[in-house]
């Protein structure tokens, strides 16, 4: 069966980085094969899912302002169907970790993540969320959110430009598109 279309309109496939891991997913899907009926439903569901990802409003510091810019007039992520920011983790699909996560905040973030319904995704926005960023040497900063929760997309920058955040969002869209909805890759265990 023809495997799903992971193209994003108006952006060439080659222009994306890190295509290899998506191809791995696709290969795996090809090998295992699904029947046409299930495959079609799957494609349809993923098409819907990837175009209406609802983020949780979770901003701790500076990167949150750039995230707000992405949502506002100039760059407007409503064009991609991401505009429904949810305030409750139970309604959200993805958590944008915008900003530094410190020791006191870590359990809060973990709990928010655990409250989200599967399938759920995490985007680490900014160097703080990736590695602790400029505050890496601090006594109270978590050195990257992957120490607490698994991350799907990392967006570097301090803060990343809105375009970078959009690019990261598209990467997540593409990832969602190649997943087998009925057999979602098991989410990694949360480190205790």
């Amino acid at each position: 069966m023809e495997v799903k279309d992971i193209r994003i309109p108006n952006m060439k496939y080659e222009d994306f980085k890190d295509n290899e891991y998506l191809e791995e997913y696709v290969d795996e899907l090809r090998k295992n094969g699904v029947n046409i009926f299930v495959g079609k439903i799957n494609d349809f569901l993923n098409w819907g899912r990837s175009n209406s990802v609802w983020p949780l409003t979770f901003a701790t510091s500076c990167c949150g302002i750039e995230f707000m810019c992405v949502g506002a007039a100039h760059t407007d992520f409503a064009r991609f169907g991401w505009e429904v920011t949810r305030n409750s983790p139970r309604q959200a699909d993805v958590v944008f970790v915008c900003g530094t996560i410190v020791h006191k905040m870590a359990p809060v973030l973990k709990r928010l993540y655990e409250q989200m319904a599967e399938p759920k995704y995490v985007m680490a926005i900014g160097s703080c969320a990736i590695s602790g960023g400029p505050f890496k040497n601090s006594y109270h900063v978590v050195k990257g959110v992957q120490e607490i929760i698994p991350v799907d997309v990392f967006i570097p920058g301090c803060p990343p430009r809105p375009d970078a955040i959009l690019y990261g969002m598209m990467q997540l869209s593409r990832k969602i598109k190649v997943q087998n909805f009925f057999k979602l890759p098991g989410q990694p265990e949360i480190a205790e």
Partner: protein
Amino acid sequence: MKEPIEKIAELYNAETTENGGRYELTLAKENIHDAAAYLKREYGYDFLLEMVGMDYGDTLGVIYYLSQSTNPAPLLVLKTSTEKSDYPELYSVCDLWDSAEFYEREVYDFFGIMFINHPDMRRIFLRSDWNGYPLRKDYDANPELNPIPHRNEFLVDMERVPSITMSMGKEIETTRSLFDHDEYIVNFGPQHPAMHGVLHLRVSLDGEVVKSVDPNFGYIHRGVEKLCERYTYPQILHLTDRLDYLSGTINRHAFCLCCEKALGLEVPERAVYIRTIFDELTRIASHLLGWGSMCMDMGSITAFIYGMRDREKIMDIFEETAGGRLMANYSVIGGVANDIHPNFVKRVKEFIPYMRKMMKEHHLFFTGNPIARGRMDGIGYLSKEKAISIGATGPGGRASGWRNDIRKIEPYAVYDKVDFEEVIRADGLTFDRYVIRLDEIEQSLRIIEQLIDRIPEGAFLNKPKGVVKLPAGEYFQRVENARGQFCVHITSKGDAKPYRVKFRSPCLTLVSALKEVAPTHKIADLIMLGASFDYVIPCIDR
């Protein structure tokens, strides 16, 4: 200025020194409270600007910066110290100035100094189970001592708020509960869309009416002050931007000014003009965002989108010249990082009439809107005396009629060469704090308008030679950022790295103001009150 100093020196045996035009009084720890009370009573020192905790090596100390609301320019510095033991103690001054309540908790959190007679000696930023006092020089930063916690803090302090009181020469340790057992308490934050960051409020309610508010900080405490001690001065610069990221450029300017003053470095005229224009643009951007999110909290998403749209124009100007949008990273010690873009002047000139036109629109649509007025009129009264005692500087205090604009009091950069008004409103209500931001945008536009054609030719950077080493001593600089007085205190021992850096966050006192005005209001108004003070949490937590 001479008189109070001589008086205190005589009455309380204080040692007087002069440092950069400021008088410093060193007092024994037994006398600090009495001397402070005397100064307040007799000479009207009603504003405690900040308290800096210090670790002098073998002793721990506190530096108090005092000021009078009637004559705000000269600062008076009090110093005291206590021996470094397991339980160092000092007398609290929080009965004199309300702002001391949070300041002393901060000193306790970082240095472990207990304040006698302080009603609430909990840690302010770190969790109650944190080991050690991080800003002490002998702090053990071993991550195994303080691993990343996997559980939320158990808020037992509801039952046990520790404090020490003195009674008949004996210390009595007491605990009291913050809330009664049958009180109805709502947790508000740290992850809440209307909280403008990760502040955690515990609100005690009576029906729909707020009885008291207990703010919890530290959810974004990044340990910036400790980090500063291991970075060189040019490296610290980029941390200053990230404190109050909405006025990042202004904070950075403050740190640069402080270093330049210490080094005696001449800053080229061109750089001074450019910095001032950048500061004012930042202020406009910050107020637009503050205004937009305040309107959003009232339910008007349109205002937020409008605000962000106009703000984006400023971001474009920044990006063209400095390369960064939110973090312009532009001022450096000795000037600015690079020259302005050839389009800069043109773009700024285009922006001014555009912004004026938009301001008319904003006033028309939002300021006059009956729904907005219904939510803002007659709500959230903060009196002038209280604002001074709390130390709520910036637009929050000016809305209560307190003149505290550093640009007027102690003009830095080129603020003494431009004609602008310090916007003051008398009523101290939510609506005043709303309008004052919009009016300040207009004043900022006026400043930019006067400066943009006068940017002198010449060099833009006078780079200090070699490694930047501030001569040993203490340096202090305050500037007016979009939220109030932002101060930098540097203690240097003559090395390439500072011995101690302290930033005064204007936002911390704004939260005390919220705590002060919130009771008796409806819980729905609490959000409006918070938005009207427009605090930025990472600036509080540092």
